[in-house]
Structures are given as structure tokens and as C-alpha cells.
């Protein structure tokens, strides 16, 4: 590590002596600056935590930053191409979405259309209008997967286990529910029968786990090979699924180009999207963060005025000391450096106090509100808020110390002669 120059070390030694000699003044400066630095730390920490929480949810819904998604209709020939290209690859997963009703046959599900429980999306006609009677069944969005999708959508496990592709496909498809679906099945006890795409053929599903996928729509995840056996006749002559098909691919996989070319050759229209949610979200949050930081900056300025005031008073008191230091050969620049060192150290101490207070408060909030607000559970104090606090402390030290430093450097040496 490079050591400080003689002047730097002299400034540090004399600055620390000055602070120790004037503890009350230093404390008063810190008090006046504390709120300003705290405001900067809190704004930065709040923004970072909010951004992280928002981004974590967006990542669950839209996919890992930088990954690619190819959207297309799940027609049999398309499905066959996709299967052919991504089979055996761990850098691509296909996900076919379809509707499934789990529960009594011949009744209207309690959430017709797959709506979140408690919301009415305006279902079909009731029994009086000739439709099915309402009964014990829940409609879910079924996502049939060719592989482990968590590399692209890092679902948070909540209960049970995730799907296992190492075993032979079961005739009773294993389902992993999202929290909305799990809530629905907790509320409505339904028979273990599942009909896919509104068909009449029933399957006996097994619920093996629950994940948080940040969706309010009741959703179940299953292995495509287990679902494929039971698809409704409407799925087509090749026994392929119908619905929408997404292929999720890593940013660098060559499979993207191969798949695009094969789909184009087959005349299938596909839409490719690269997940850029972080950049878009950061852009949206930047303005809000700037507004709050500007407000925190104003509070910081008040603190700077406090340091400036105390600094000027301190220099006024120490005229003889500074004149004497000049008499023994201390250069003007070092005198300014001594005052700046004192205010910078004051700013740093204040920053440390503000960071400590914020981290402690965050820990308490996490302890007491973590159960109610999941994003607050196990939340860590963001390092960038600490850096922002230190920068704010240093800036305040420089701004508050500049004028007293100039004044100290300008004290005439003859003061000691005329005293």
C-alpha cells in the first residue's frame, strides 16, 4: 500500500490532535451533518432495496437479464422443431402454456378463465343460461416444461420439491404449483382430476411442491413429457399440445440462430425478445432516485452550513496556533490541509454513524416486518448506500471545510509577534 506523504501524515496527525482537543465542537458538527448524510444513505438504501425487490419479481416473470425468449404458437410442427433443436441442451428450455381444470368434471371452475381467486374475469354462461353449474374445480394455467426452467426464471421454493427430469415420466403428472394456485387448492378442496385444454379426458395429478413465481394467476408447472400423454383431442392429430409456446435460451447459445432458421424455413412466425428489464427499470427508477437524492442533498447542505459555521469559529479560536505553526515552518497549504483533514474526518465519522444507524434500523425493520413483507425478510444493507454515505460525508467535509481552510492558510504569521 502506498504510504501517505510527509505532509499528508502531518495533516492527519495534527488533524486528529485537533479533533481530540475539540471533541464537543466535533460532536456538534457531526450532529448538524448527521441528518443530511442519513438522508442520502436512506434514499440510496431504499432505492437499492426497492430496485432489487422489483427486479427479483420481474426476473421471475420475464426471465434472467440478457436471456432470449422466442414466442410462437404451439402448433404440432412447431413443437416438433423446437423439441428437435433443444433436446439434450441445458442452455434452452421450452415452455408450453395451456389451460387446465383440476376438480369435478362437468362443472364451472370457481375461477373460470384461470382468474386469480376472488377476481371475476367474466366467465361463461351460468346453468340458468345453459352453461355448466358452478362446482368444486379450479382452473390453472399449466406450463409444460422440457427442462428445468429455473436457470431462466429463478422461482423461489416455498414448499415441497421441484420437478425431476431424471426419472421416467409418470402417468400421474407431477405438478408444482405457484402460490396463487396453492392458495386456491387450500381454499377449495377438489377431487384429484385434471382436464387439459378443457377436454374431457381426466388425469390424476400429483402436487409435489409450491414455488413463488411472482404471478397472481393460479399456475402449475409440469414436465412436458408427462403432460403430452394426456392432451385433449383438440391438440391435433400429432398428439401435440396447443396453446402458446415460449423457448427460453441463454444469451450465448447457438441454438437461438438454429431455431430461428428452422422456424423460418417451416414458415412459422416467431417473435424473439432479449430480456432487458433491469436497464428499463433502472431508467424508470433513476428519475425518482434523483428527485429524492436532490431533497437529501438539500438536507445535507444544511449540515454543510453547520460544519462551516463550527469550522470558522474553530479557526477564529486557533489564530495563534496557526500563526505559530507557520512560524515553525508549516506551509500554508498544510495549514489548509489540517483544517480540511479535521472536517473530512468529521464527515467520515458522521457517515459511519449514519451508515450504522441505517443498517441497524434496517435490521430491526427486517426483524419486525419481514413476516408481513417478504421483500424485507433477510434484506441486507446495500453496499452502495454505504458508499453514498461515505461520499456524502466527504463532500460535506470538503464543502464545509474549504472556507475555514482558506482562512487558516491566510492567517498572518506576525500574529505571534504582536500578541
Amino acid at each position, binding site marked *: 500500500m502506498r504510504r501517505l506523504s510527509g505532509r499528508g501524515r502531518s495533516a492527519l496527525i495534527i488533524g486528529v490532535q485537533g479533533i481530540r482537543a475539540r471533541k464537543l465542537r466535533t460532536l456538534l458538527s457531526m450532529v448538524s451533518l448527521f441528518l443530511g448524510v442519513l438522508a442520502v444513505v436512506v434514499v440510496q438504501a431504499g432505492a437499492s432495496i426497492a430496485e432489487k425487490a422489483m427486479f427479483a419479481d420481474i426476473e421471475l416473470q420475464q426471465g434472467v437479464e440478457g436471456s432470449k425468449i422466442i414466442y410462437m404458437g404451439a402448433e404440432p410442427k412447431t413443437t416438433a422443431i423446437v423439441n428437435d433443436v433443444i433436446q439434450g441442451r441445458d442452455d434452452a428450455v421450452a415452455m408450453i402454456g395451456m389451460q387446465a381444470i383440476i376438480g369435478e368434471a362437468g362443472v364451472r371452475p370457481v375461477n373460470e378463465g384461470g382468474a386469480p381467486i376472488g377476481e371475476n374475469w367474466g366467465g361463461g354462461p351460468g346453468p340458468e343460461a345453459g352453461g355448466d353449474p358452478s362446482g368444486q374445480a379450479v382452473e390453472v394455467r399449466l406450463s409444460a416444461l422440457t427442462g428445468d426452467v429455473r436457470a431462466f426464471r429463478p422461482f423461489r421454493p416455498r414448499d415441497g420439491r421441484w420437478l425431476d427430469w431424471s426419472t421416467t415420466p409418470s402417468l400421474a403428472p407431477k405438478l408444482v404449483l405457484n402460490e396463487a394456485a396453492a392458495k386456491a387448492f387450500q381454499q377449495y378442496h377438489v377431487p384429484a382430476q385434471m382436464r387439459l385444454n378443457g377436454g374431457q379426458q381426466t388425469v390424476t395429478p400429483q402436487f409435489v411442491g409450491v414455488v413463488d413465481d411472482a404471478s397472481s394467476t393460479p399456475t402449475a408447472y409440469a414436465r412436458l413429457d408427462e403432460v403430452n400423454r394426456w392432451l385433449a383431442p383438440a391438440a391435433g392429430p400429432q398428439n401435440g399440445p396447443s396453446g402458446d409456446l415460449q423457448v427460453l435460451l441463454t444469451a450465448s447459445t447457438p441454438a437461438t440462430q438454429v431455431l430461428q432458421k428452422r422456424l423460418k424455413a417451416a414458415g412459422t412466425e416467431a417473435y424473439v425478445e432479449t430480456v432487458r428489464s433491469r436497464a428499463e427499470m433502472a431508467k424508470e427508477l433513476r428519475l425518482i432516485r434523483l428527485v429524492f437524492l436532490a431533497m437529501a442533498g438539500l438536507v445535507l447542505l444544511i449540515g454543510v452550513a453547520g460544519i462551516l459555521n463550527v469550522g470558522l469559529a474553530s479557526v477564529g479560536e486557533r489564530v495563534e496556533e496557526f500563526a505559530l505553526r507557520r512560524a515553525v515552518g508549516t*506551509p500554508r497549504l498544510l495549514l489548509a490541509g489540517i483544517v480540511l483533514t479535521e472536517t473530512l474526518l468529521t464527515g467520515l465519522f458522521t457517515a459511519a454513524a449514519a451508515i450504522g444507524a441505517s443498517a441497524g434500523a434496517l435490521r430491526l425493520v427486517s426483524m419486525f416486518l419481514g413476516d408481513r413483507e417478504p421483500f424485507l425478510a433477510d434484506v441486507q444493507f446495500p453496499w452502495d448506500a454505504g458508499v453514498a454515505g461515505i461520499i456524502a460525508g466527504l463532500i460535506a467535509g470538503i464543502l464545509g471545510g474549504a472556507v475555514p481552510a482558506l482562512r487558516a492558510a491566510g492567517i498572518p504569521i*506576525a500574529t505571534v509577534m504582536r500578541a
Partner: protein
Amino acid sequence: MTALIELTGIVKTLKGQKQPRTILDGVEMRVDPGESVAIVGRSGSGKSTLLSVLGIFDRPDAGTYLLHGQDISRIPERKAAKLRSAEFGFVFQRFFLLKHLTAAQNVAMALVNGQGWLPRRERKRRVMAALDQVGIAQLAKSKPTKLSGGEQQRVAIARALVREPKVLLADEPTGALDLETGTLVIEALLSATERGCGLVLVTHDRDHAARMGRTLDLHDGVLTERVPA
């Protein structure tokens, strides 16, 4: 032999409220290594102004100031600070000790001044040697408020001696002390001349002035040699 200090035709004018006032009017002065010189004169005669010029606190308006034969009459402040640190030691009437520092830390102030860097151990060695030279090494850890006037002035002398200066400038160092303590302080200052340090003492006290090698009288801005009776 090259003089330690040689002033020729030094003029210093202070801007008064109505008209400029000439404080030093063609001052001629020479100090050799190891020599002790007393400057006496009435209050307001310009003794402290002369000391300010000698210590490069102020620059003369006219004339030449040679230090070791080098003209330093118009040197910039940055170089003057370096010279003050390396060549001069200062002792003032008021001791100017910092109350929050110990005697040793007050002495070390002259070493921690941004003009070169000494390791902590070397600093400590020099500080203790300087305190020992003035006979108060045992008071190194005492704060100034716990010291008598004579002890405080000896700490100030140790501070002036710690960098082993070539010239010691003392501005009425016994002015705030009783006769006996003042004598001890003068002895401490004179001991520095034994190793070749020049001493310029500004004083009102004729007895202390008489102990110096020469006495110069400053009157109406003109410095004249006082012939011993």
C-alpha cells in the same frame, strides 16, 4: 568567514492610518555562528519588526538580507517556510504552547510541520534530547497547564531547538518571568550558542542584554552598536 546573517540597508515601512511610518531605516547588522546579540530599544522602536524580518515572517521593503551569504530578501513564502523550519528557532514572550498537547507533543510540533518526515522513534529521540538540553525531560508528559512559567518557556525553547537551528530568535523571552526564572531561560538560550547557533535576543532587560556577546540599540529605526561602559 561568511556571516550567518548579514543585513544591509534594510528598510521596512508600515502603512499607518494617515501616512506610512518607517520602522526600520537602513538597518545594518551582522551575526556570526555561535555569536549572541542583544537588541534593545524603547517600546515601539521596531525591535519586533526587525525580528520579523530576520525570521522571514516579513520581507524588507529595501535592502539586502543574506543568510549564509545567500540573498533571501525576496524569497517566496514556500521557500521561506522551508528556511524557517530548517534554519531558525523562535522563542516568544508568550510561550504559545498548545494546551491540549503534552510538553513533548508541543516540542514535536516543530518536527511535524510538513517539511520532511521523521519516523516516530526518531521524533521521540529528538524531542527528548531537546527537553533534556533545557533540563525538563522529566516533564515530557505534562500538559502546559501543569507547568510553571519558567518550565513553559523552557518547553518553548526546546521546541525552538529540536530541529537544531542555525539561528535562534528570541522576542523578549523573559518578559513574563521573574528574575530568577528569566536567568535560567537566558542560560538555556546561551547554551545553544555553544554548538555554533547564532542567538538574537530582543529584550528590555539590561542585565540579560549584558550577558550577550554584543548589544545593539534600535532607535528611530536605526541600529547602533552599544559600546560597553
